[in-house]
């Protein structure tokens, strides 16, 4: 049975996160990397957004560049996703 990811304002220590950019800033989902169900739910969220052509980046919070993610990586501790860019 699939579970829903927990939506949070601040990610708890030890948890992994996906921050999805949107009109209200972003929505953060956290999951426990030691919980297979939560990891599966995170993957499902990631895959569904990628299917909608969201860009995804694995990031660290130290100012270093992020890395583009084409496929799910369960080891990614922090992921940022946004809708596709358009030329203006």
């Amino acid at each position: 049975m699939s579970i829903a990811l927990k939506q949070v304002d601040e990610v708890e220590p030890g948890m992994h996160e996906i921050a999805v950019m949107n009109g209200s800033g972003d929505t953060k989902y956290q999951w426990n990397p030691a919980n297979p169900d939560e990891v599966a739910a995170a993957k499902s969220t990631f895959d569904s957004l990628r299917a909608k052509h969201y860009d995804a980046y694995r990031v660290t919070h130290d100012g270093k560049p992020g890395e583009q993610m084409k496929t799910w990586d369960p080891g990614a501790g922090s992921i940022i996703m946004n809708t596709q860019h358009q030329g203006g």
Partner: protein
Amino acid sequence: MVAGITWVPATVTTATTLTNSSITTDNVWRVWSDQCYQLTQQATWCSWTSTSVLTNSTTVFSQSAFDCDVWRVWAAAPRPPESTEARLLRREQDRISQLRFDESQRKIAEEARLSRARAEKLLVRQLSPAQKDTLSRLNYFDLDVGGKTYRIKRGTHGNVREIVNGIETASFCIQPPGLPTEDVMLAQKLLLEANEPEFLRIANRTVLRS
């Protein structure tokens, strides 16, 4: 009160004639709401859907209406003076409407402020100390990508610049739609650093200085 026109109810018969410059029988309102009179010049409710222009020789029957500009006639006809009670009620309704509008605008502005604050937090978390410093002081931060310097200025359109020897030589317009400004800036940074060719392929480039 306009000469020849009063708002006192009077009898309007099938023989009533209303002319353009003077209205006999003096009952425009009752004429407007009534349906069964043969009138010259002006017939309002019974010909409500007509769109033709009223002429001096227009004749209108109750069952068929032609050559009537109902709205124009209605708007031109003098209206009864507003009572004090009605005027106070109208002003109160206007005041309440204005309050509701002001409140909705306040909520929209507050939501926008919170969205940008949240986006700013997400952006700053991904910046180096030097980038945080210039963003807070000068509203931009620089990136070093493949030996080239790019500047992301606060904004959403045309806000990415190529810097050569300290001079802005080109601007790039590229953004995910519908996001707060600081989210756009972060998305630009992430794509530019992770996939510069893709960034350059999508962006509209404008030469600023050759």
